[in-house]
């Protein structure tokens, strides 16, 4: 069996596939996310069997040319090529192919954790239900985009319902901070324990959403100083994030894969969507001169067609000084080999409802017919949702999204991080993605695949051609999600009821003792010299 597919002897048989992985909110370290995701995909590939034979995978990690003295971890390469390559000999299809994994890493653009960040975060978290709607950008380049129109946010009542739910999140956050937060604080200070700092994790995770809506990145201290990255000075921090995405897209295009894919999770889906929809005119602003010249040399950028005029006004990011006025990215060339996009646990619909200006849809055609956009959601995952605002008027400008339900996990919030977790037996999303990468068909990502998959009834209009599926699982899991929310509120309220009165009475008692001590010592201090100076007092 092996002789037929000798890698070196028959290299022309290798198909080259690229995968751009985008992480979501969190504190991921460099390559942490891609490492975790690739593991699941590799497990799924190795489980593919045919006629008793299993598929084989060899993983190669490109190491850096240098490493820090006495560093604890080795360095991975971060050049123009993907840091991870998997050579696959697939048993069911007999194919031999290379899968190259790129990572879009932007976690470092988060603000450093500090008291100042916490104060700003909680101020924002308390009023999130009241923040005005973010409409279409007025920057140059935005003229070739349009805002999504969320069906769930068209009338005042619908928008009020969305805001009411956001307000509910604020309430739960306050309860959580007053119960779990204080509990953690006391456990640390009184008992010298080291429990997980839930508040820190929560702040750092959700602050990614806040960051995406900020005008500038801030550091620590009061008042917090500007902490924009040098290359993005004066630009919103989301520009820094998009820069990473767009450069990764360009990398994948320049690698000349036979086909390539984007897999994004959580807030990373917003990052990926922004990157895919960014207008051709604004692309130069995301590159350095050398990188842009490389795109031009490879035919992915250059002068615009006759008759096209650059939009007026200031672009965001600003046009580089070195950029030719009529130079644009040839997005149709960049995305020519882009075969599919897979979103997991995406908050895109929530953005489309509240801040449509943050997730504009391109109106410039760039995608080929057959470019697939899949959105995987689980009702128990509070971040995810059915995509209904992105009804496509032109599939070349924005592929039509297909939303598919997937039972990720029964546990609240845990379901958000277990989409790509592989388990033996087949039928997982990891199996489906592995099959998509190998065969190019998404036949194993769909509601008919297995017991974990289902179709949302509210997505039926947007469900694509394969919508005839029982969606009772959607309702069951939606009910389960509401039960989780209700349970969380009750537990947190009870926990607050136990913790806060004790802390309040302890604080009261401590304060009284402190006041008495201070008062007594002051009286003694004042009286002592007078007593000493009294006639007859001994010195």
């Amino acid at each position: 069996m092996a002789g037929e597919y000798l890698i070196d002897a028959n290299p022309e048989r290798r198909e080259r596939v690229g995968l751009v992985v985008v992480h979501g909110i969190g504190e991921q370290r460099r390559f942490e996310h891609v490492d975790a995701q690739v593991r699941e995909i590799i497990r799924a590939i190795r489980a593919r069997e045919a006629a008793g034979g299993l598929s084989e995978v060899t993983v190669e990690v490109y190491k850096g040319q240098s490493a820090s003295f006495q560093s604890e971890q080795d360095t991975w390469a971060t050049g123009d090529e993907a840091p991870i390559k998997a050579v696959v000999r697939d048993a069911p299809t007999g194919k031999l192919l290379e899968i190259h994994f790129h990572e879009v890493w932007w976690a470092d653009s988060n603000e450093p954790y500090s008291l100042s960040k916490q104060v700003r975060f909680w101020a924002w978290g308390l009023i999130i239900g009241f923040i005005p709607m973010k409409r279409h950008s007025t920057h140059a380049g935005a003229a070739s985009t349009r805002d999504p129109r969320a069906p769930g946010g068209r009338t005042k009542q619908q928008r009020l319902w969305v805001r009411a739910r956001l307000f509910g999140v604020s309430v739960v956050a306050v309860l959580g901070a007053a119960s779990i937060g204080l509990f953690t604080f006391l456990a640390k200070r009184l008992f010298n324990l080291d429990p997980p700092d839930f508040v820190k994790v929560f702040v750092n995770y959700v602050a990614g959403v806040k960051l995406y809506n900020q005008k500038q990145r801030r550091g620590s201290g009061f008042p917090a100083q500007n902490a924009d990255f040098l290359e993005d000075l004066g630009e919103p921090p989301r520009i820094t994030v998009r820069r990473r995405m767009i450069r990764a897209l360009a990398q994948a295009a320049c690698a000349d894969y036979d086909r390539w894919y984007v897999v994004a999770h959580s807030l990373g889906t917003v990052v990926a969507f922004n990157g895919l929809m960014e207008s051709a005119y604004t692309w130069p602003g995301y590159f350095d001169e050398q990188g842009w010249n490389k795109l031009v040399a490879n035919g992915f950028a250059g002068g615009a067609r006759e008759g096209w005029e650059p939009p007026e006004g200031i672009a965001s990011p600003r046009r580089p000084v070195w950029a030719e006025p009529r130079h644009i990215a040839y997005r149709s060339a960049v995305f020519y080999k882009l075969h599919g996009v897979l979103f997991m646990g995406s908050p895109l619909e929530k953005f489309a409802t509240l801040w449509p200006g943050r997730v504009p849809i391109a109106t410039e055609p760039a995608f080929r017919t057959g470019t697939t956009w899949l959105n995987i959601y689980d009702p128990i995952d509070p971040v995810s949702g059915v995509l209904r605002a992105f009804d496509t008027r032109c599939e070349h400008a924005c592929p039509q999204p297909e939303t598919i339900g997937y039972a990720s996990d029964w546990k609240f919030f845990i379901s958000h991080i277990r989409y790509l977790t592989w388990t033996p037996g087949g039928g997982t999303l990891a199996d489906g993605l592995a099959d998509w990468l190998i065969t190019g068909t998404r036949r194993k990502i769909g509601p008919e695949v297995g017991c974990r998959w289902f179709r949302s009834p509210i997505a039926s209009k947007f469900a694509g051609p394969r919508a005839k599926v029982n969606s009772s699982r959607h309702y069951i899991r939606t009910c389960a999600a509401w039960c989780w929310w209700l349970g969380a509120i009750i537990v947190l309220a009870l926990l607050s009821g136990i913790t806060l009165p004790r802390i309040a009475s302890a604080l009261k008692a401590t304060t009284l003792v402190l006041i008495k001590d201070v008062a007594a010592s002051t009286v003694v201090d004042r009286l002592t010299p007078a007593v000493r100076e009294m006639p007859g007092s001994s010195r």
Partner: protein
Amino acid sequence: MTALVQYVPVLVLHSIEFLSAAVLIPLVAGIIARTFFLSVDQDDERRVELSDWEAEVTHLSLISPEPNPKHSYSWNIH
């Protein structure tokens, strides 16, 4: 056991108090913020009606600025 039975109503009362506080704090903060600081989007001072704005942004360019766009080629695998 008696102490526990006596404690449960107190706990429930405390919990309801804190639940009310957790509702009131973001509500008051939100109303104050919306009234004084967030009456309009600070990045966008346009004060057009939503319907006008929607009409404004539904234009379609749909013409590529590229000299030789390649998007018309179709994928033959699905």
